[in-house]
């Protein structure tokens, strides 16, 4: 028995003529050659992109990638069933592939060269059991994916594009659907024929005790074999079946290998590579333009760097970004998925050919297939929802902003945006107000607010445009100033030394103006004496925290929510009038997704005694108010729903909601407006968290509360 088990091994080319074996090898080499050529073409394509030096060690990147891939963490998010099914396919495939690969290793390399054999005995049996189970996992995963594609009718899997109209050659891209199905079917056929093949082999060799007695180590194959025998299949018939199926199975498998670089199958490599080169601050810290660089922004496909070209190929069309995008949700002609796919098609048609086409043919701006239209680019609110959810680390925001830089350079933008940029250049703020009036809101306070340029302070408050100039937000600024004063915080502001922080200017794509603003603020901050920076404006917070370091400005900076929370825990602020409101909280993109400031505002709400009811889309999945990326300066099209209105409806569905809490000046503006236009006025109110804090801590003297 022992010896028999020991003798058992994988039946490979048994009963094949030498010519057949040679033919198979020939085909195998051909498949590998085609694969190799495909890989070469792909790599040549990426290398045609601009250069980029990655930060960080290769091994750390590799480790991070491996952990994402093995855990399926990113694939599982917001779609557990697809994540689970993919996990089954992934592990099933990996095991089966590893199995086949080790057989090749032994048969073609180790045994002929070194005489090493391990494919026999106990090891082989356990391995066949594992592979049999892997096959089941693979088939189950594939079956679910087929059900999902065929019957679940998920909107995110609908390839119709919001930036094209029916009739356009690239409107809904049926070739993608065909490819999806072909991929599923090929894998399914390979897996199923594998089992039938195994069963046929068992029936064929049923007289060989070493094989037949150990058949239950391949349970599925054995079961099928029993079925075949019951159905009257004899050894000869089984032998023929096995022979034919062997070729069929083998050829399809080789075909799959050969096609990897040319089809969506390549995501196996591109997605992993993309995860490996992920930039955790892709949207938070946009790339600088080197001074030496003439060309500004992405005009041609070759202006993207190799990593971005790789990103394009990594996209698996999973549609998560499409689903999360606020612009898409309100019917704007933008889907981050389609920006990526469009550019990918463009890169494929231009950069995969032997010779690089003329510059004119590399232009990615426009309405032809593969190009991206201006309206599409301007619809983006740079809210980062797409980057955040992409399971394969596609970084849409820098791609979109780099394309916008080109539009800005040409002046191809809404006249209102042009005006705003000119205004910001002239006055340093988007309101077109005189610089001198930046600190004017503080005059209404019963105490003077220190000028941090003139006297040292502990906390420098970077106020930002909206909180400084918008009348509604000025009230909030006054409240925050009195709270700081009451808590005994030694704080000051920069008065007319402060300029627009530039976060949104940069995201519009006006990099030159951003450089001017960032430099001005870094210089102003250098002229003040302070320990740390606080800001009430998440947009300013993001750029100062993540982007000013590139301009020589490194500070300890926090959003007011963490400072306020600390003031409570230290007992410097105390709730004397607990609020019993039922509230919901809107995570500002730049505080939440961008900088992971999810907890402090929630903890504050709990401290104030509020009952927090979360909206469906919260924290990382928060839904942008629509103001980001400079869109606050460009009115949304009339008639169409605005993102803020979409959000208000979501909030209005919370039974008994009293306060919709925000912690960003732009949110206050956008949502107070949306509250009215969605007819929810009177049902609940929109308030800054700062205002709730004030309510919970009534000022000591009534006259301390500014009007």
């Amino acid at each position, binding site marked *: 028995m022992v010896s028999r088990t020991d003798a058992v091994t994988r039946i490979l080319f048994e009963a094949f003529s030498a010519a057949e074996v040679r033919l198979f090898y020939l085909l195998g080499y051909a498949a590998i050659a085609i694969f190799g050529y495909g890989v070469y073409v792909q790599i040549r394509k990426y290398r045609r992109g601009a250069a980029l030096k990655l930060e960080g060690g290769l091994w750390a990147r590799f480790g991070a990638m491996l952990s994402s891939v093995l855990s399926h963490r990113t694939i599982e998010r917001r779609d557990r069933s697809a994540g689970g099914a993919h996990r089954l396919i992934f592990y099933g495939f990996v095991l089966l592939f590893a199995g086949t690969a080790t057989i090749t290793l032994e048969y073609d390399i180790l045994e002929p060269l070194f005489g090493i054999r391990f494919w026999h005995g106990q090891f082989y049996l356990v391995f066949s059991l594992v592979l049999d189970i892997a096959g089941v996992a693979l088939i189950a995963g594939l079956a679910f994916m087929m059900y999902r594609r065929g019957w679940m009718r998920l909107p995110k899997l609908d390839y119709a594009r919001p930036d094209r109209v029916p009739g356009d050659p690239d409107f809904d891209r049926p070739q993608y659907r065909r490819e999806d199905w072909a991929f599923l079917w090929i894998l399914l056929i390979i897996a199923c024929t594998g089992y039938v093949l195994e069963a046929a082999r068992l029936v064929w060799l049923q007289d060989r005790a070493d094989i037949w007695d150990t058949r239950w180590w391949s349970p599925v194959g054995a079961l099928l074999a029993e079925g075949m025998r019951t159905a009257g299949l004899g050894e000869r018939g089984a032998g023929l079946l096995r022979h034919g199926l062997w070729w069929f199975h083998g050829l399809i498998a080789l075909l799959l290998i050969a096609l990897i670089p040319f089809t969506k199958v390549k995501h196996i490599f591109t997605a992993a590579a993309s995860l490996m080169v992920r930039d955790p601050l892709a949207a938070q810290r946009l790339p600088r333009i080197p001074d030496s660089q003439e060309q500004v922004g992405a005009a041609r496909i070759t202006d993207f760097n190799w990593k971005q070209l790789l990103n394009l190929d990594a996209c698996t069309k999973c549609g998560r970004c499409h689903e999360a995008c606020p612009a898409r949700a309100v019917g704007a002609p933008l889907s981050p998925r389609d920006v990526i796919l469009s550019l990918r098609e463009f890169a494929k048609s231009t950069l995969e050919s032997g010779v690089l086409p003329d510059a004119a043919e590399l232009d990615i701006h426009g309405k032809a297939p593969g190009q991206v239209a201006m309206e599409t680019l301007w619809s983006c609110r740079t809210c980062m929802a797409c980057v955040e959810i992409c399971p394969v680390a596609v970084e849409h925001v820098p791609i979109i902003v780099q394309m916008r830089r080109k539009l*800005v350079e040409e002046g191809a933008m809404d006249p209102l945006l042009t005006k705003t940029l000119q205004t910001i250049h002239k006055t340093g703020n988007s309101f077109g*107000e*005189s610089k*001198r009036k930046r600190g004017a809101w503080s005059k209404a306070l019963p105490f003077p607010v220190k000028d941090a340029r003139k006297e040292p302070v502990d906390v420098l408050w970077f106020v930002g445009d909206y909180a400084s100039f918008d009348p509604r937000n000025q009230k909030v600024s006054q409240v925050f100033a009195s709270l700081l004063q009451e808590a005994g915080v030694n704080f000051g502001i920069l008065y007319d030394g402060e300029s627009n922080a530039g976060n949104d200017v940069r995201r519009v794509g006006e990099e*030159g103006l951003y450089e*001017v603003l960032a430099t001005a603020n870094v210089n102003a901050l250098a002229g003040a004496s302070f320990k740390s920076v606080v800001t009430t404006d998440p947009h300013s917070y993001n750029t100062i925290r993540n982007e000013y370091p590139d301009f020589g400005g490194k500070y300890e900076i926090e959003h007011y929510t963490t400072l306020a929370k600390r003031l409570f825990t230290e007992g410097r602020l105390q709730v004397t009038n607990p609020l019993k409101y039922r509230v919901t909280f809107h995570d500002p993109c730049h505080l939440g997704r961008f900088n992971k400031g999810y907890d402090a505002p929630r903890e504050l709400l709990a401290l104030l005694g509020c009952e927090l009811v979360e909206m469906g889309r919260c924290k990382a999945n928060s839904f942008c108010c629509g103001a980001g990326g400079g869109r606050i300066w460009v009115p949304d099209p009339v008639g169409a729903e605005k993102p803020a209105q979409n959000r208000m409806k979501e909030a209005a569905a919370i039974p008994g909601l009293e306060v919709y809490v925000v912690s960003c000046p732009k949110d206050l503006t956008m949502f107070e407006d949306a509250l009215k236009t969605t007819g929810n006025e009177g049902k609940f109110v929109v308030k800054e968290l700062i205002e709730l804090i004030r309510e919970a801590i009534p000022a000591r003297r009534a006259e301390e509360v500014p009007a």
Partner: protein
Amino acid sequence: MKILVAVKQVAALDEDFAIRDDGRDVDSDFFIRDLNEWDDFSLEEAVKIRESSAEPVEVVVVSVGPDEADESLRKCLAKGADRAIRVWDTCIEYSDSIAIARVLAAVAKREAPNMLFAGVQSSDQSFASTGIAAAALLGWPHAAVVSNLTCTPGANLAVFRRELEGGLLHEVEIQCPAVLTIQLGINTPRYASLRSIKQAAAKPIEVLSLSDLALGAADVGEAGSSSRVRRMYVPDKARAQLIEGDAAQQAARLAQIIHAFKGAAS
């Protein structure tokens, strides 16, 4: 072909401002300087002609002003001007529009362009006469308030349209060289990105003095001007009051006020 575009760096006022000690202008501390709005359009028109022309067209901007005006000239270079000239001499200060026109005419003689564009007026002084005065000094044909222009480089004639009362359009042919003052809205001026402005900083701005133009101190400044600003001031706010009561009471009060004013006048 060459187009000379006269531009001006104008001063916009800050929210609150103070009048200079001599009472003849606003204290320049309160100025927010920028390129005159009209000049944006005339420059754009010139650049558009160059862009749509097969034969080479040179667009030269010229400004009469101190160092600060370089900033506006750089903006013009960023928007597509090929060259920039700035004329300055301290005695040019206090020039009226005619004296400025004299300087511009001298530059035009030196450059010999086929056309001289100017904005209809400047937003800070609103004389609306500089361009036309330059034409008179040069003895060139001219047209004011041009709202549409067709001009083929190489041809001696340009055709333009002007808007008249009652929705009428005036289509006119003009012999070059000519002076045209350009109206707002004739085109959509392009945006000069900050990077393009920065890159334009590398282009030289030619600075000319009066002697380069064969002009003397007597041609400019107060000496060369035919008008002189006496004072600049904010007029007293007009007063208004709401008269309440019924018709009879209102009439009585009105009569009282009229009497009071009449009394004051006599």
